[in-house]
């Protein structure tokens, strides 16, 4: 019974349960008497406890047990879901999150005595704090968890016998764990071992003295079990008894419906999904990427063939590979729900802290996007939502004075638009304060003192590095990281940010992101004799110019394009290559980033192509101007240019 391989699955499922507890708590706050919510929470805590117990994570199991006791009282109506109770439960879920991560990562477990005591006071007001069971206890009798108690109960109904077997090994036993193994092996031949103490893992790693206990379900009699164990070497003593736990708990009627519900939940959870390590997925996706490249090579060779049968085979290979490519890319897609899920709780906490009433509406949470983006979009969104709560939504009195609904609303949503995903954060607060932004901009020397600015220009100023209008740094936002950080984060994901606002009505931030980061359309160009790929969304146009059209302004080369003066650079020079001199017209690529257009002279244009992005290894690290590499159909490597840093 080595549980280590289940660790990841356990962690992932446990996190799901914690999320569901969090969600339920938010619902419960608005509907404190809903038995449906309470039942759901109780089940989540209960399942979590059972899982933790099975894994031998005692602290986690113990803590969840405390929480479950409180939930049980709420469920039966013996305890009222008051604000105090709900706050304790919120803290408990937070504690569980920490506890879970510490347990999973084998970190030292912190003491959460305060919150444990708070839970205990709720479940038993008379009880003076704690008789928490110390770890490494000498008492080896098995304390059944409720899941196993149920299993035993069902076993008894089906005519099995349940025994607790207490075994003492001889003091000088060598390879104790193997001895335990022979005992388990012998007993598993005649029955099923339900649980043991110490845990199977502790037994395997020889973290026990000479005594251990186990519970077995079997058709054999106690006498036979005794004889089987005594027939094994190095046994000092064997005691077979009925586990009193089982009989004592048999009358507990509350448990009777439980196993059915639990098994139903289990099937629902496992039927449609398989949890796979992301590393394995990435490996698969990378291999498909390689295959796509080989396909291109094969297709090029096949072009020269005459034989129609071979051509058909090649066409078939081409088609299947393309489908495989899309299927693999789909594996990278995850619903944005993963990110959105944490916001209801965050908004609740922040709204309480700033004494505002805020309603968070979420839509389109099932919208899928690239896992790589999902992992990185969280922080910018947190920042934007904090901004809305902190600067957007007005205090209640002010809202009433303005004739607005007392409760502020933040709408957070996602939707697809072509090959992009749009994420919108909108609040019905005070909108942008154009005058305040203007003044700030004046003090920062961004606009002249008497200039008038429009609301759109004000929005653009927000993105200027270091620009923040907050009068005081609050706990919620500010802290020097402003909209410019949001913009930088989004642009690093090849996305754009747009702000729209009406004073006193709304502020809406729209983030536009590509669906996937793994494959992009790129323009292939030659510079310094090497091939480079430029992401197509940055390319505005490509033109041919005569050398005479290159002008010099303040010792910089520029070109004039439709009355716009654009700086002009030689791409090869920018990248540190010796530019290959030629005569005749020049090929120029116009690239735009952050509203700034620049022309790059290149030696040749190869054309547009979909490329698979491979990140440069850690050895090379971040190279300015280079976003990654790709392997071309010819098998050659081309570097992908990072337009935003290149322009700088």
């Amino acid at each position: 019974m080595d549980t280590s391989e289940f660790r990841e699955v356990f962690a992932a499922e446990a996190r799901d349960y914690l999320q569901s507890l969090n969600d339920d708590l938010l619902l419960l706050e608005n509907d404190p008497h809903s038995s449906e919510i309470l039942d759901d929470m109780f089940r989540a805590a209960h399942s979590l406890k059972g899982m933790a117990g099975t894994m031998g994570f005692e602290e986690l199991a113990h803590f969840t047990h405390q929480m479950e006791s409180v939930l049980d009282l709420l469920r039966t109506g013996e305890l009222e879901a008051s604000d105090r109770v709900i706050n304790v439960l919120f803290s408990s879920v937070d504690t569980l999150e920490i506890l879970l991560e510490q347990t999973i990562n084998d970190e030292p477990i912190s003491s959460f005595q305060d919150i444990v005591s708070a839970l205990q006071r709720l479940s038993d007001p008379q009880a003076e704090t704690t008789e928490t069971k110390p770890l490494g206890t000498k008492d080896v009798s098995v304390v059944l968890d409720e899941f196993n108690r149920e299993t035993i109960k069902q076993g008894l109904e089906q005519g099995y016998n349940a025994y607790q077997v207490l075994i003492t090994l001889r003091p000088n036993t060598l390879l104790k764990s193997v001895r335990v193994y022979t005992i388990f092996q012998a007993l598993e031949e005649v029955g099923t071992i339900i649980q043991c103490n110490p845990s199977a893992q502790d037994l395997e790693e020889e973290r026990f003295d000479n005594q251990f206990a186990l519970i077995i379900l079997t058709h054999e009699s106690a006498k036979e079990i005794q004889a089987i164990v005594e027939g094994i070497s190095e046994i000092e003593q064997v005691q077979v008894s009925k586990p009193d736990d089982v009989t004592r708990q048999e009358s507990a009627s509350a448990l009777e419906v439980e196993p059915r519900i639990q098994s139903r939940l289990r099937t629902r959870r496992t039927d449609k999904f398989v949890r796979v390590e992301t590393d394995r997925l990435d490996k698969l996706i990378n291999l498909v990427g390689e295959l796509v490249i080989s396909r291109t090579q094969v297709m090029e060779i096949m072009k020269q063939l005459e034989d129609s049968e071979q051509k058909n085979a090649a066409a078939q290979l081409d088609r299947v590979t393309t489908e495989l490519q899309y299927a693999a890319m789909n594996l990278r897609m995850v619903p944005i729900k993963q990110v959105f899920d944490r916001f209801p709780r965050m908004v609740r906490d922040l709204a309480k802290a700033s004494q505002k009433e805020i309603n968070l509406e979420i839509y389109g949470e099932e919208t899928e996007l690239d896992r790589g983006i999902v992992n990185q979009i969280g922080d910018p969104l947190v920042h934007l939502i904090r901004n809305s709560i902190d600067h957007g939504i007005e205090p209640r009195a002010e809202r009433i004075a303005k004739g607005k609904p007392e409760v502020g609303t933040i709408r957070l949503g996602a939707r697809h638009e072509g090959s992009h995903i749009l994420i919108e954060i909108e609040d019905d607060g005070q909108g942008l304060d154009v005058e305040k932004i203007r003044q700030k901009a004046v003090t920062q020397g961004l606009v002249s003192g008497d200039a008038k600015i429009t609301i759109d220009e004000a929005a653009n100023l927000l993105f200027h590095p270091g620009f923040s209008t907050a009068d005081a740094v609050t706990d919620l936002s500010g802290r020097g990281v402003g909209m410019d950080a949001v913009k930088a984060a989004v642009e690093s994901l090849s996305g754009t940010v747009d702000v729209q606002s009406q004073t006193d009505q709304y502020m809406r931030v729209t983030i536009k992101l590509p669906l996937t980061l793994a494959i992009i359309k790129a323009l292939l160009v030659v510079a310094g004799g090497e091939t480079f790929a430029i992401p197509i969304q940055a390319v505005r146009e490509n033109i041919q110019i005569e050398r005479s059209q290159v002008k010099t302004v303040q010792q910089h080369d520029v070109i004039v394009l439709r009355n716009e003066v654009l700086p002009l650079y030689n791409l090869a020079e920018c990248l540190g290559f010796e530019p290959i001199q030629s005569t005749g017209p020049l090929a120029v690529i116009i690239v735009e980033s952050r509203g700034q257009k620049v022309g790059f002279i290149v030696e040749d244009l190869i054309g547009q192509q979909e490329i698979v992005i491979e990140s440069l290894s850690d050895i090379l690290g971040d190279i300015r101007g280079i976003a990654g590499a790709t392997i071309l159909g010819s098998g050659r490597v081309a570097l992908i240019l990072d337009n935003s840093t290149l322009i700088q």
Partner: protein
Amino acid sequence: MPKKVLITDDTAFMRMTLKNVIEKNGFEVVGEAGDGEEAIAKYKELQPDLVTMDITMPKMDGITAIKEIMKIDPNAKIVVCSAMGQKPMVIEALNAGAKDFLVKPFDAERVVEALRKAAP
């Protein structure tokens, strides 16, 4: 009738020590084998009640030999002998069908207990 034992170990010294302990305690050593292949041949020839099997041996290791003997006789009573730190191999031997295990250096009482319990 004393139980017939086949001793398998690649060192003559270990075979001698084991033989000495086993014969003093009412068993009959009917044969000795120096590697796995020899153990299989002698098992067929002598049909012993018990076999002691070393794990690390030339030609054929003990675990393979246990698997082969169990194929010939599913009721074979084999006690595997291991050095310290061979835990995974011992488990493999037990899974292959060994009835018990002994850890070197041997303790006479343990050897006798293992043999008695393996073939009661």
